[in-house]
């Protein structure tokens, strides 16, 4: 694959290093000429100094034959424009943008970026997972649809404890995919009963995540 990476910060640096070692053709575009010199010393002639949002630089980089363009600068606005220019001018099949403000993920997708990666969101998820007894965890966002995989812990006194899956008022746009009980994976049927201490794994549309959270994570009052 031919992959163009824009932005030679830490993320861009390690992406370049890893993708090169995996045998891909990689080109890194970085604005700061001093930085690019260092990169050239290390990686060889796969680094170009310039503004990746500029069509001339992308043209020179051979964006027209790139399979993927990845924008990982520290500025959301730069990442957006890199992806949009790659998409509209060079018809790059897959554009990936790093998003610093998690709120921008939705906007970027709406504006044509194929994949968004929010470090803030990932770190938040990791923190949530690390906190014991967190009743509702957002595990991962699915790429193509606005879907997420979530994990709800059935806490003591939960509304859904001892009820059958088929009887739960699960909101539309959501499916309960699995139950993890004492480390064992159960693929549930409508008659499967939910027990205290279970992890309920659901795939849900992000718009109903809050409803699902209310259903799964709340205690009986």
């Amino acid at each position, binding site marked *: 694959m031919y992959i163009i990476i824009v932005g030679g910060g830490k993320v861009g640096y390690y992406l370049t290093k890893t993708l090169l070692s995996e045998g891909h053709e990689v080109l890194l575009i970085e604005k700061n000429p001093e930085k690019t010199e260092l990169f050239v010393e290390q990686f060889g002639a796969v680094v170009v100094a310039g503004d990746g*949002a500029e*069509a001339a630089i992308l043209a020179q980089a051979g964006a027209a034959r790139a399979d993927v363009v990845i924008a990982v600068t520290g500025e959301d606005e730069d990442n957006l424009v890199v992806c949009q220019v790659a998409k509209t001018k060079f018809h790059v099949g897959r554009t990936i943008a790093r998003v610093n403000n998690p709120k921008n993920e939705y906007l970027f997708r709406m504006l044509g970026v194929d994949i968004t990666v929010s470090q803030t969101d990932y770190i938040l998820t990791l923190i949530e997972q690390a906190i014991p007894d967190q009743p509702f965890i957002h595990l991962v966002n699915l790429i193509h649809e606005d879907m997420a995989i979530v994990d709800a812990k059935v806490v003591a006194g939960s509304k859904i404890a001892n009820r059958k899956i088929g009887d739960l008022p699960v909101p539309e746009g959501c499916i309960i995919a699995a139950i993890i009980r004492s480390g064992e994976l159960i693929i549930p049927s409508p008659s499967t009963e939910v027990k205290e201490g279970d992890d309920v794994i659901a795939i849900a549309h992000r718009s109903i995540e809050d409803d699902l959270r209310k259903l799964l994570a709340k205690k009986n009052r």
Partner: protein
Amino acid sequence: MKAVIMGCGRVGARVAAVLDHNGHQVTVIDINSRAFRRLPEEFRGRTLIGTGIDEDVLRRAGITEAAAFVAVTNGDNRNIMAAQVARNIFSVPEVICRIYDPVREDTYRRLGLTTVCPTTVISAQILDSVMSASTRTALPLES
């Protein structure tokens, strides 16, 4: 009319001042509070510190009721992103975006943004003057 101006540089401050003078309700956003010193003393509009690429900042600036949004910071990409937020998320009727890079300006004009490219406008004006000067001096020589 309510207008939100992002970027209080020379252009932003002037646009804001003229709109305000003409009786419109203006909010100016800039990341640097010192930029607001460019506004005239009699300016009655609102100033807001923040970046216009943040939806929350735009909302605080009253973008939901704005009839016009003007993006004139010195960063092309920032202007482009803010303009698209104003247009696609807040459906502001009139969105104007300054882009210095002529190629990028062309790209986003095609995508439907109302763009102004100072580079092409100013160089055209300068070239006009230079050309007419050269014809003026050339004419007497020929006659």
